[in-house]
C-alpha cells in the first residue's frame, strides 16, 4: 500500500516540533547555527538536517503574510535521484517511499545534483548522500514517521495515499469556497505524484517549492544513454576513484612526512 504524508500549511504554525523530532529519532547532531536575520534555522538541509521548516514573509494588500514551508525529500514517484543513480542504489520501497541502499551507493553525488527540490545533501565526511528516509525504519515497525507523531495540530498527517488525497482535496475545496482561489493540493501530479502532499494556501514558491518540478533533460539523457552501459560507467568511475584514492594517499603520506619534519612534532605526538 502506497503511503504518504499530508502537510496542511493552513494548520502549520512553525513550532518546529517536527524538525526537532526528526533530529531526535534519527539522532542527528545539532548544527552550530547563527542568527541569520530570520526565524529560519538551520539555513539549509544538510547531512545533519533532513527536514526543516522554512519561513517567508511577504507584504500584500491584505497585510503581512507569513508562510511556513516544510522542506525535505519529497519521495517522488518519478524520482530524478533514482533515475540518475548509476548503480541502482536508490529505489522505491513497498510503501512507495524513496530509499538509498548504502551498500550499493558509490557516493557519486548525481542524486543530490539532479534533485529538482534540492533536498538531498551530500555528506563530505562519509561521501554519501543523506535525506529524509520517511522514517522507513519506523514504518517497518508499525509506527508513523517521527514528524507526524510530533505535530501538535495535525498539520502533518501520515496515512494511505488514497485517503490523504481525498482529505487534501476536500480541504483545498473548502479553502477555495472560503475565497482562497490560490489554494492547491501540491504533489498530486507533480513528478507523477510525490509522497509528500501539500495543502498550499498560496503559490508553491512561498513554500520553497518549484512551480513545475521536472526531471531535467540532462538527467533523462544521462539515464537514457548510459543506463545500458552502466557496468562500464561503474568500472570507469571505480577506476577514477581508485586513482583518486592513490593520489590522496600519496598526498596524505607527504603531509605526514612534513609534519614529522616540523620541530616539536615528537613531543606533541606523546
Amino acid at each position: 500500500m502506497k503511503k504518504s504524508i499530508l502537510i496542511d500549511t493552513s494548520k502549520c504554525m512553525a513550532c518546529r516540533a517536527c524538525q526537532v523530532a526528526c533530529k531526535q529519532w534519527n539522532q542527528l547532531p545539532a548544527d552550530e547555527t547563527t542568527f541569520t536575520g530570520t526565524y529560519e534555522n538551520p539555513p539549509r538541509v544538510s547531512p545533519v538536517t533532513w527536514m526543516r521548516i522554512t519561513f517567508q514573509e511577504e507584504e500584500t494588500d491584505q497585510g503581512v503574510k507569513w508562510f511556513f514551508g516544510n522542506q525535505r525529500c519529497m519521495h517522488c514517484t518519478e524520482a530524478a535521484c533514482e533515475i540518475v543513480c548509476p548503480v541502482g542504489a536508490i529505489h522505491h520501497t513497498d510503501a512507495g517511499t524513496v530509499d538509498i541502499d548504502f551498500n550499493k551507493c558509490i557516493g557519486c553525488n548525481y542524486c543530490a545534483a539532479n534533485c529538482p527540490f534540492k533536498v538531498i545533501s551530500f555528506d563530505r565526511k562519509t561521501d554519501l548522500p543523506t535525506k529524509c528516509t520517511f522514517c522507513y525504519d519506523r514504518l517497518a515497525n508499525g509506527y508513523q514517521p517521527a514528524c507526524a507523531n510530533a505535530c501538535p495540530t495535525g498539520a502533518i498527517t501520515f496515512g494511505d495515499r488514497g485517503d490523504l488525497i481525498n482529505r487534501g482535496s476536500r480541504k483545498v475545496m473548502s479553502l477555495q469556497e472560503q475565497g482562497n482561489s490560490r489554494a492547491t493540493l501540491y504533489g498530486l501530479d507533480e513528478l507523477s505524484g510525490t509522497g509528500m502532499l501539500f495543502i498550499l494556501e498560496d503559490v508553491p514558491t512561498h513554500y520553497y517549492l518549484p512551480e513545475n518540478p521536472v526531471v531535467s533533460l540532462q538527467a533523462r539523457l544521462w539515464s537514457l544513454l548510459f543506463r545500458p552501459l552502466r557496468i562500464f560507467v561503474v568500472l570507469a568511475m571505480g577506476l577514477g576513484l581508485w586513482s583518486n584514492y592513490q593520489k590522496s594517499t600519496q598526498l596524505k603520506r607527504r603531509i605526514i612526512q612534513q609534519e614529522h619534519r616540523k620541530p616539536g612534532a615528537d613531543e606533541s605526538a606523546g
Partner: protein
Amino acid sequence: MTNHWIDYQHSDVMMNIGLNTAENHPVSMKWIQKAKDRGGKLICVDPRFTRTAAMSDLYVPIRPGTNLAFLNGMIQYALENDLVHHEYLINYTNAAYLVNEAYHFEDGMFSGARLMDDGIGGEKVVYDRTTWSYQSDEAGQVLSDETLEDPRCVYQLMKQHFRRYDLQTVSEIIGCPLETLQACAALFCSTGKPEKAGNIMYAMGITQFTHGAENVRAIAILQAILGNMGRPGGGVNAQRGQSNVQGSTDMAMLYHIIPGYMPVPSESLHPTLEAYHATSPGGYWANRPKFMNSLLKAFWGEHATPGNDYAYDYLPKIDKERSHIATSKYMGDGEIKGMVCWADNPAVGGPTAARKRKNSAKLDWLVSVDIFENETATFWKEPGVNPEEIDTEVFLLPAALHMERDGSISNSGRWIQWRYAAGTPPGDCHSDLWIVDRLFRAVRDAYQVDGGVFPDPILKMNWDYGEDASSARVAMEINGYDTRTGELLTSFAQLQDDGSTAAGCWIYAGYYANEEEPACQRRIRETEGVGNHPEWAYAWPINRRILYNRCSADPAGNSWNPDLPLFQWNGSGWNRYDVPDFNAALLPEESARNAFIMTGEGRARLFSNGMVEGPFPEHYEPWESPLANRVSSVQFNPCSTVWYPDDRADYASGAFPLVATTYRLSEHYQTGMMTRNMPWLVETMPELFVEISPTLAADHGLVSGDQVVVSSQRGEFQAPVCVTPRVKSFQAGGKTIEMVGILWHWGYAGLSKGPVTNDVAPSIGDANTTIPEYKAFLCQIRKVV
C-alpha cells in the same frame, strides 16, 4: 481558565489577546484548529505579527500598553450597537442593580479617592470604596430595575462610563486602523447572540502592566455582557505559561494567598482566627472558616485544637508588601539575609534584573534549586563581576526534571493529572519533594537541638511523608481526610470547621480520595458528551470542567445553544454533561438566581468593589509612555506603588523615544534553563535578537543582522536586529510610534549565552497584583559600528 483546552473546539469566535498561543502554547492550536474547521474565527490582537497572527482570520495591531482602551472599546461597541445578550444580562449579571447615589466618576478618578503614604516615601491613591456599593431597602434587599432604565442602575452607569471609548477614540489611542478595529468589534460582538459562544484567551500580555488586573476585569465584563461565561466555547481563559503553573498558584506560590485562594493572613487585619473568619466574603465563600480550619489541621495536626485557635498563631502573618519587586528591594536594603530560589531564575527573569543580581550580593547565603546551574546561582561570576568582592555563600541543589519524578500537574483548565516518573534523575539530582523533605527535617532537627525564639511552628508541624517522602502521601494530605478516622474526603462539602477534617487545599478535595485508584490517575475518554471527558483525570473544583455552568442554559433551563447542551432541564431534572456549579436540586428558575455561586449577589459583577482602582476598568497609559492619556488627565494607574521614581524615563527629554515590549519564542522557555542547554533547540534559535520595523531600520541605517545597543533609563544590552515587516510603527495620538520587540530568554549561563534583556525592564507593578510591567516601556537603539 473558566473552561479548558479541549473546550476551545466549540468557540465561534476566539480572541487571542496579550497572548501568542501558537508560539507559547502550541498544543492549544490543535483545539483552535478544530474550531476553525467548524467555521470558527480566530482574532489575534498583538503589537506585532506573530506566528499566531499568521494562523488567524483577523490580525489587530495594538500599541503596547493599551489593551484596556481596546477592551473598553469592545464593551462600548457592544453597548452602543445593542449586541449584548439581554436575557443573560438581566438574569445572570448585576446590570439591573442600583448603585449608591454617592458613587461618581470624573476625569479618570472614581469617588472615594484619597492620597496616602505608600510606605516608601511616596504617595499613591488609595480608594475608600464605600460608595462603590448598591442601593438597598430597609430590609437590606438590593434595589434593582429590570427595565435597565434607571439612571443609577449598573447598566446605565456602564453606558455612561464606556461612552468615551468609541472606536474612533480607541483607534487613536491604540494605533490600529479604524476599519480593522470595526471588523474586530463586529466579529467578536457577534457572539452576543444567544446561540453563539466567544472565547477570550490571554496570558502575560494582558497581566504584565501597571493596570494588568483591570485588563482581566475588562475581559470578564465583555464576556459577561455578551453572555459568554459558563458556556461551552466561551469563558475567560488564562493560559498558564508552565504546565503546572496553575498547580503552583492553587498551592499558593504567590505572596498574597494561602492554599485554595484564601487571602494570606495579615498582621493588622487578621490578628486572630476570629478576625480572619470575620472577613469571609459572601456566596460560597461563606464556608471559608471550614476551609481555613481544615488547612490549619493539615499543617499542625493534633497540635491544632479549638483551644489554640487551630494553631492560627503558628501561621506567619504578612506585615507589609512582600511582592517580587518589594522583596528584591528589601534584599538590597540588607533586610533579607538569605534566599532559597527554587526553580526560579530572577537574575534573568526579574524586572531590572541587573539590580536583582546586585542585590543578591547583599545576601549572606543563597540556595539555588534547579536542573542546571542558572544565572541566579552564578551571579557572582557574571562577566564583569569580581567574585572576590562578593561574600554571599551560594549552594546549588541539583533537581530532577519533571519527567524524572512522580506527582500531579494541574493544567490551565484546572485538570489535575497524575504522572509517573519516566526515568531516574542523573547523578546527585533529586526530586523537589526529596529536597524539601530533607531540608525541612534538617531545619526541624536544628530547632530541636538549638531551640529558638519561636520553635513551635516547626517542631509541631504535621510532617510525615515516609523516610523517602512519598508524593502519594502528600497528595492525600492535600486531598483532605477525616481526622478521627483517617478516611479520605471525596468533596470539599465534607469539610468542617470543628477540627474533624484536615485538607491541604480545599479546592483539591476529591482528587485523591481513593488510595488505590485516585481520580487524578484516571484516563478514560468519554464516549458521549461535549469534550469534557469527566473520567479523564480530575478537575478542581469537584471535577467541574466549565465554571459558572448554570449560565449555559436560560433561566427556564433550556440550553442557549440547543446543538451544544451542557445542561438541559427535562421537566423533572437536568440532562447534563458536567458537574453543576449550582444547586441542581432546585427548580431552574430558582438556581438561575444564584448562577455565579461564588459572589454574594449570585451574579456576575459588571460593577464591583473588588479592585483597587475602581468599579469599572479605566484606561491609563503605562508608567513609561510616549503619549499623554487621551481619555483623562490621569496619566498612569494612580494606585500603583512607585518603587524607584528615578527609573522612569521622561519621554519629553527625547532620550528614549521608542516603545519596547518583551516576549517569548516557541523554541525557548522562560529564562532558558530547560532550552538553552539543549543543542537541538539552540540550533533553531541560536542567539538573542530584537525585532524592529523596516522604517525604524531605515532611520538608523540598519539591516537584519546588524548589532544595536538597546538602552532604557535602567540599563542597556547589545543584540543583532531582525528587520521585519511583521513589526510596524503605530499611528497614535498624532505621532508615529516605533516599537522594539525584545526577547528575554538569554543569560550568561548555559550552552547558548546572551545578554540579560530584562536589565532594561522597569520595576513597577500592577496595583492589585504587583506583577511587573514588562510589556510596555520606553527605550532607544543605537547602531554598533
